[in-house]
């Protein structure tokens, strides 16, 4: 899809957003360590899922603001809206683009995180882990793209996005961190994670459908 390619080319060319987000994520991990190891030998095992996903969510908030700020700046959004494409297609392309960026960041971040914080090897549970990762990512990106479209048009756009995004993403956060922590701390196969995985799937489906119905309004004028 043309939009997707355009966004990717643009980002790869400047690499602004990606590098900033990756740096942010890595820094956050370091900060987490210092913030939480107050007591000697503190065990962060059961915090791992939480740390990971909080980091990703906040990184996405940064990224979303950027990706839409660019469209707004040169009035490119108008150019986009003039084209004979469905608004929903724009939504899907933007979401896919954001998803790819998030995945790229995660490819770098997850190994580093494992190195820093995860004691036991979870290679055996790699597949469930990746599934959870992907499903949660989709939810974050879909919801984030929809909300960023709205917030980009308001007065205090960067400040607004976290306020409207964070309460909505809590269900995903709960399910994803629960699943991830289980995998990191104790190891769990699909069986134990089934409820959460299905929940994430359900969340994704429901919200993408909701976005389908409302995106026209969110982006139009």
């Amino acid at each position, binding site marked *: 899809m043309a939009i997707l390619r355009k966004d990717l080319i643009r980002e790869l060319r400047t690499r602004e957003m990606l590098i900033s987000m990756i740096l942010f994520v890595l820094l956050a991990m370091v900060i987490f360590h210092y913030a939480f190891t107050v007591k000697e030998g503190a065990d962060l095992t059961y915090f791992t899922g939480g740390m990971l996903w909080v980091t990703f969510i906040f990184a996405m908030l940064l990224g979303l603001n950027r990706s839409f700020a660019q469209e707004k700046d040169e009035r490119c959004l108008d150019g986009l809206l003039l084209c004979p494409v469905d608004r929903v297609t724009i939504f899907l392309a933007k979401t896919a683009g954001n998803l790819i960026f998030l995945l790229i960041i995660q490819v770098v971040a997850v190994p580093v995180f494992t190195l820093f914080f995860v004691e036991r090897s979870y290679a055996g549970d790699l597949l469930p882990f990746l599934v959870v990762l992907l499903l949660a990512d989709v939810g974050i990106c879909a919801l984030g793209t929809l909300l960023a479209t709205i917030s980009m048009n308001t*007065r205090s756009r960067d400040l607004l996005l976290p306020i*409207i995004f964070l309460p909505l993403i809590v269900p995903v956060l709960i399910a994803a961190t629960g699943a991830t922590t289980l995998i990191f701390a104790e190891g769990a196969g699909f069986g134990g994670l089934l*409820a959460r995985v299905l929940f994430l799937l359900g969340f994704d489906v429901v919200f993408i459908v909701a976005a389908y119905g409302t995106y026209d309004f969110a982006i139009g004028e």
Partner: protein
Amino acid sequence: MKQLVSAPALFVEAGICLVAGLLLAFLYAPVDASSMGFSQKIFFYHVPIAETALVAFGIALVAAIAYLRTQNLKWDRLGLVCVRLGLLFSLLVMVTGMIWGKAAWGVWWAWEPRLTTFLLVCFLYIAYLVLRSVVEEEQRRATYAAVFAIIAFIDVPMTFFATRFLPEGLHPVVITTGGTGMEASMLVSFLISMLGMTLLLVALIRRDLAVEDLKDRVADLKNTIGG
């Protein structure tokens, strides 16, 4: 019939139902057999408030969809009023919930599913109000608010289910809102309270709509005079 449904009358009716419900709860319904004892009585207000809050948000959802379809700002106004009231009721849920918690378990706060969900609901709909405050243009503000109201309402049950994934902690989730376990006397008191609360909601909606309408008319007059 119109007399019965007019705004002041509604308040009176709501008041009667609520007071009646309260009296019944205290005098008629037996003291709860479980460990909570007398403090369980708050249930008669706490749960109706919660359900009414959700009803308010539900109406906001319908209003949002209606606005997107018709572009008529009246729906936007209804949505705003309902969200504000829903928020108010939600805060009351939290307060009564905390009182109950203190009386029954000795702590002001517990991260149990219901309270947590309502806490998030509060944040959610506060975000709705914040969103409204940063968009100046009327139609656009209404559109964005409507989109958010729809998304928010879908998110509420999601949040509730998600909180069930969380570990239960020290405080067991006791309430069974189904009401199937209730004796007849308790049920009656409960239902009357429910009715009272709902009437109160309707009365408040009407009043707030009228206030908003007046506000708009004043603004219009100001515009015509001020130029």
